[in-house]
């Protein structure tokens, strides 16, 4: 599949080059540098074909990560893989940067050797890789028993969890993280809005615990039509009417969740990996509680522009929004800016052509107003100001989709500790995805 993986810095120095198959030579290193990194025009696609070889590339910070293949490969798969490689490197040395790559290059070679065999991705799970690829290069002296255990985790049935984990206190943290995206028309109508949520779990549990999670999911049986057509009578779905159930458009789960069981009775049951992981991802588009309403107003008069932005927090008064930041773009020809905000701090950032208005805390139900008077330079060619949208960043401790964790039960048959012995914590955070409001 993948014939080679290469890593460049922004100058085009090749820092890591690992070839897996004989169908490419070192010349691909130069071909990519010449055609993409040093290309005169910015490249308009993340996949390009040079000399009948396809180059998949992604740029993170100022690093380039490239995979090359000559086959008709699965593009999405390769990109997913490259992203996984970046995540892996971040798991090992925090930031994926030029210096870190140079200082850890032997480690990276070790990783690349392990995660791809003859171009086929093997296992990329950071937790199990970390057991035998360490920055110190240790573990050659581990006992025979441990060695076997490590490798069996790499391949085993429950690859994500090893045997014999023990904790004195059993704790479990559940984070419901949602990123709210909104595109609002100048008239105040949402053009599109969706919530991309994920449930992250951090668990410190002994043995092989069976977990069962319940959420307030209205069973919109979207796949029912297909299943009925598919002729299988597996649609044993019951409508449970709980308080304010929500319609989830789509769900994806971590490898550990028994998908078959979920299909049968919508129960989410699994044996969790040790430590931190992402249990599920979901997306909703209906009945989204938009935490902030923003109404920008622009008045242009010759060389003066007045901008007024009103923001209202649309959630329970007992909650506080945090790190609220409104970014109001201004024309490039702005010469002087007077800002006034009745809450928080607003500052003009000439380098970014925007006024940034920050508020540390924002209680539910409150409103805030901001005004800016701009003076423009007298420029001969009167180009129209291309208004990029006002964007908002925030963090609010509730779930914008309305998702709620109903219960999380834990059963461990062998060690036999009780569900009640586990301390459980649940936290909801909605943060902004791309929350944009267009100017009138």
């Amino acid at each position, binding site marked *: 599949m993948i014939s080679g993986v290469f890593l460049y810095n922004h100058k085009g120095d090749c*820092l890591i080059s690992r070839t897996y198959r004989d169908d490419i030579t070192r010349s691909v290193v130069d071909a990519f540098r010449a055609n993409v990194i040093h290309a005169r025009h910015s490249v308009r*696609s993340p996949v390009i074909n040079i000399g009948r070889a396809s180059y998949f590339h992604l740029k993170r910070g100022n690093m380039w990560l490239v995979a090359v293949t000559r086959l008709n490969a699965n593009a999405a*798969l390769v990109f997913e893989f490259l*992203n996984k490689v970046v995540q892996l490197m971040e798991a090992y040395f925090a930031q994926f940067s030029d*210096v870190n790559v140079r200082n850890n290059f032997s480690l990276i070679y070790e990783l690349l050797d392990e995660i791809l065999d003859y171009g086929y991705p093997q296992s990329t799970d950071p937790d199990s890789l970390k057991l035998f690829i360490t920055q110190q290069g240790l573990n050659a002296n581990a006992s025979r028993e441990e060695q076997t255990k490590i490798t069996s985790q790499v391949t085993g049935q429950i690859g994500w969890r090893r045997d014999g984990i023990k904790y004195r206190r059993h704790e479990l943290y559940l984070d419901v993280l949602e990123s709210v995206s909104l595109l609002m028309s100048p008239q105040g109508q949402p053009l*599109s809005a969706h919530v991309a949520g994920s449930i992250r779990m951090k668990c410190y549990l002994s043995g092989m615990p069976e977990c069962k999670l319940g959420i307030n999911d209205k069973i919109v049986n979207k796949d029912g*039509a297909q299943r009925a057509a598919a002729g299988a009578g597996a649609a044993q779905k019951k409508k449970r009417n709980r308080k304010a159930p929500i319609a989830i458009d789509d769900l994806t*789960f*971590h490898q550990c969740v028994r998908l078959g069981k979920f299909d049968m009775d919508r129960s989410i049951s699994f044996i969790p990996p040790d430590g931190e992981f992402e249990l599920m991802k979901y997306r909703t588009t209906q009945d989204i509680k938009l935490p902030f309403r923003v109404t920008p107003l622009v008045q242009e008069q010759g060389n003066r522009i007045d901008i007024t932005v009103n923001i209202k927090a649309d959630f329970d008064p007992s909650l506080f929004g945090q790190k609220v930041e409104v970014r109001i773009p201004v024309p490039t020809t702005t010469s002087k800016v007077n800002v006034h905000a009745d809450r928080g701090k607003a500052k003009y950032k000439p380098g970014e052509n925007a006024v940034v208005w920050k508020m540390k805390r924002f209680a539910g139900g409150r409103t805030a107003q901001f005004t800016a008077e701009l003076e423009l330079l007298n420029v001969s060619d009167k180009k129209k100001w291309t208004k990029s949208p006002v964007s908002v960043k925030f963090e609010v401790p509730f779930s914008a989709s309305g998702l709620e964790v109903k219960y999380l039960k834990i059963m461990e048959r062998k060690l036999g500790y009780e569900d009640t012995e586990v301390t459980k914590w649940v936290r909801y955070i909605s943060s902004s995805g791309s929350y944009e409001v267009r100017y009138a």
Partner: protein
Amino acid sequence: MATKGYENKRSEVNELRTLLRNPEVQRDPQRYCEVVEKVTLYQTLGLDVSSLFSDMVLACATRSLVQKKLVYLYLCNYAQSNSDLTLLTINTLQKDCRDTNPMIRGLALRSMCGLRVPNLVEYVLVPLKDGLADKSPYVRQTAVMGCVKLFYLDQSYVTDNNLAESLHAMIHDRDAQVVANAVIALEEVLAARGGIMLTQEVAYMLFNRLREFTEWKQCAVMNVLLRYKPASDDEVFSILNIVDERLKHSNTGVVLGAARLFLHFTAEMEDIQEDIYERLKTPLITLMSSAPAEVSFSVLHHLHTLVKKRPDVLAKDFKAFFCRFSDPAYVKTKKLDVLVDVAMESNFEPIVEEMTAYVTDIDVERARHAVRCVGRIAVKVPAAAEHCTTLLAFLELNSEYVTAETVIVMRDYLRHSPSDAVDLLPQLFELISPDLFDDESDARAAFAWLLGEFGELIEDAPYLLEAMVDDVEAEETAAVRLQLLNSTLKLFFKRPPECQKMLGRLLETLTSDEIQQDVHDRALLYYRLLRSNPDEARRVINATLPPILDHDRSAMTDMELREFNTLSVIYGQPSINFTVQQPPYCTFGTIDPTAALKQAQQANDEDEDEEEEADDTPSFTQR
């Protein structure tokens, strides 16, 4: 250590050799390892460190796992050019293959198979066979891949030693990852025979164990399973019920792999197609809006394929394709294309409105693209045509490139439905004049075309045209000159008294043109035609234009559906156009080369008459 090496890299190879041979260094494991790391670093930089081979061979006798790995990496790179010396390492490698640590056994086996020295394969056989029967699954899966490596080194090796049979046996291994690797390996080793034999028993076993494989191997195995031929519709449904849960996986590769199985197995069942598309679209839209940009980009292409096949299914989801400010350029461009294809009677209004917002984008290329898209929607959806006033509104933006692009789009639209000219042209000509697009030759040509074609509807057409004719000497582009010639002639037959003089002047200028042969020849042809037989000339010049038909893209779309979840969808080309070899694992979907070529040519022809598609087809020539 690494950073230091960069500055003075040239002179260092000799120094490294001295270091590697220094007994003091060899006694200090940490220093020894650092020197080996340095060698690897130079190797990465592209320096030739092959002269250190014999010293590196000695360095592989070490307890340090890191050093071992680096030395093996070095060996795999240079073994081919030092085949004689490589023999020296075999001993150490064989010893490592018998190590108590499965990690080391696996590593040694992987490196041994990766040496690529044909005359050493005989030494690999025993460790390889041991590896296939090893008690650690890690070693087994490595050994399985080793078989593939040796197969490419020496094709007869696998058959001579009955390795294929051993691999077949391993399909039923206890460990799922070994099973997946065995399937992958057999697919390559048996490519000449059409890959692994998928009996019902094997296929069912793989379908049932699918969830046990790692995400990457699920993709590979699903690709193999495409070749399986279910006996009945009921069988298809029970298979799809198993695959269905894969659509909930968070890895895009897995979801698209499952989607391909769905599309492939139900390709013949017309009646449930709509349900299938309905089922597939939701997970794909989720992935598109939540995955990293590059992944999102490839999902978007696959969604586009689905949209092209069945726009009705996704018509309600058009909002998912609205651009976000933070999307990278390639995603935005593609989203616009998808919006055009998803537009229909029921949803065109918000789409056109959204496009209008992009016309004011700072990125010139996208603004132009948005104008073109509005034009394409107007052509495609008859009801949207009334919205051509939207197009006219673009002209009031006072931006040169938007105006230019709008004129071009107007020409294309009126060429498609000339009957609307009566309503549109007067408004259009109120807003434009040729000096608005001094830098835009295509727009000038379009402007001239409108004057020639609809001269009878525009009162001052001759005068507008005359201004351009007078400037023809300054006009550099051949296309505009040719268009001017055509338009003047057309207008001449419509309004002879007003045009005769300028036609004479134009013909004189152009026939004396000696640089642009094409222009010269055409002018001369018309001149002679007019002289010999004016009636014949009228017939030639005022020939009715053939109506524009929406060209049929279904052959392309079907190709994309057949090669779903591959690069073909991204490039919009059949795989034959951009790969050298056929991947062994998708032999099922390959089209016979001649037909594919024909299709490709057809596709290229289509590209030529549709400008906007030309941008996103990749160039396959080395620049």
